[in-house]
């Protein structure tokens, strides 16, 4: 294993149609590190996670895992060239027609464990060890809680996370395992969504807006369990509007503003004034 960050994102540009959502965003996450990405609505936080998870595809830039540059399959190279030549040619990429959005990263690469994951479909990205807890939980409504968790483990890597281990982390899910997912409260759904992502035994867990629509006490409860997750050697990227929680949980913080990194640094070095300035662009 080479030294260097687990995940390294270099100069990623991403578009929704003609609208550019990310401008040369760079970010790195060390092994076992918790990184928070904060910013106002529309700053590009979720877009960044979607690019890492393979739900959207940067048209430029790199996303690398553990710094070892290995070229991907020839098919991937073809895809990459296709995007470079025909930015609107999303029909060349079957996975894009089923992925949400019309995202085309136009520059930059995303490398994960040394493999370029840019333009890799989400299901392949997961197999390499990146799992996303999507914004709004998005459990499968016609599946029970247990089935939602099992789906998460459908293509699992070897590792510590099993159904029993997830139930241990969130005991309430064990009690409600046979209920349909929509029967859970918002906080329980968030736990199920995190548990579902853990079931694949990821190296890197991406959490999109854990606190969204949840009562503060529930948010604190969920955040209190994150150390149990990182204790297994997992790295975390948390996208969060709740700055207080983000600063408390993360060691390193990136603040996005209109698609650009406006501020970054160790959580303990960032003052409220600096963050306000970066957050609101004043």
């Amino acid at each position, binding site marked *: 294993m080479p030294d260097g960050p687990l995940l390294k994102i270099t100069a990623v540009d991403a578009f929704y149609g003609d609208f550019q959502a990310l401008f040369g965003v760079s970010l790195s996450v060390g092994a076992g590190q918790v990184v928070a990405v904060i910013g106002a609505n529309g700053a590009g936080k979720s877009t960044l996670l979607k690019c890492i998870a393979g739900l959207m595809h940067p048209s430029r830039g790199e996303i690398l895992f553990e710094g070892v540059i290995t070229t991907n399959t020839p098919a991937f190279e073809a895809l990459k060239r296709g995007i470079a030549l025909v930015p609107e040619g999303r029909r060349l990429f079957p*996975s894009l027609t*089923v992925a949400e959005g019309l995202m085309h990263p136009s520059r930059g690469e995303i490398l994960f464990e040394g493999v370029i994951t840019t333009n890799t479909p989400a299901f392949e990205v997961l197999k390499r060890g990146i799992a996303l807890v999507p914004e709004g939980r998005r459990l499968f409504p016609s599946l029970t809680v247990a089935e939602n968790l099992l789906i998460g483990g459908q293509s699992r890597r070897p590792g510590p996370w099993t159904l029993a281990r997830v139930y241990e982390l969130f005991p309430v899910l064990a009690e409600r395992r046979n209920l349909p997912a929509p029967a859970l409260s918002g906080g329980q759904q968030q736990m199920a969504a995190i548990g579902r992502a853990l079931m*694949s035994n990821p190296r890197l867990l991406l959490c999109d807006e854990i606190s969204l629509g949840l009562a503060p006490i529930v948010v604190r409860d969920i955040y209190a369990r994150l150390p149990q997750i990182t204790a297994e050697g997992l790295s975390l990227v948390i996208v969060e509007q709740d700055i207080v929680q983000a600063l408390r949980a993360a060691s390193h913080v990136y603040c996005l503003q209109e698609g650009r990194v406006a501020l970054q640094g160790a959580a303990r070095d960032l003052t409220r004034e600096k963050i306000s300035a970066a957050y609101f662009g004043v």
Partner: protein
Amino acid sequence: MQWLNVILQGVLIGGLYAMFAAGLSLIFGVMRLVNIAHGDLIVLAAYVSLMATQTFGMDPLSSLLLVVPAMALIGYGLQRGLLNRTLGDDLLPPLLVTFGLSIIIQNGLLELFTADSRKLQAGAIEIQTFQLAQNLWVGAFPLIQFVVAVAVIGGLQLLFYRTALGRALRATSDDQAVAQLMGLDTRHVFAVAMALSLAVIAIAGVFLAVRANFDPAIGPARLIFAFEAVIIGGLGSMWGTLAGGIILGVSQAIGAQIDPGWQLLAGHIVFLTILAVRPQGLFPKVSG
């Protein structure tokens, strides 16, 4: 007793209609694709069975051993090679492409097999009957057909709710993007769903071909029966689809008993009535 007999025959043919409908319902449920070529694929399965019986001298029921995997393979290839490319937010492209596919299959079969009516010969089993009561007889073949239909519907139900594959199909139906995040290749999941659908079609096609004459042009009418059974039963419910098929079969049998010309009309009228009174169907899926 005569009416009881009519209803019984209607129930038994309803099993066949349910098999027509199950594949259609499955595809729509998993990927929101309305397969206009569904009826023609049923007829294609009948011709594949015809070739198998002529080439290998098999009887039609044994030919299922060949026809089912062959059709499943065709389904997988069709989805990966063609239909996956048509899926997206717009429902129109898959409609148009499967409509085109329907025309291609009909004309391909016409070219290969001419417009002559064919029928598969299953031998003595076709004419064997059991007496259930005074003046109430049931044919061995329609009975087998019905039992197979119930087994197919029950099997699909089990597969959907008791297996990892079923879980993947339901998850993909719920939310494709998140299903991808779970490591599911939705293109593969869709292709497996189409393979399953065509495997069911294969069984239905062989039973159709033994029961009645077929020619390359009868596909669209089978598609209508399938649609009607699905709508009557309610989308998303396999047992509802079986009920829908039976209601359609019984309606047609009663119509035919009143006047031989009213067979199809009676089925359509019952379908329209249910659509008007209960548009969600009689047994819609409770959740989702």
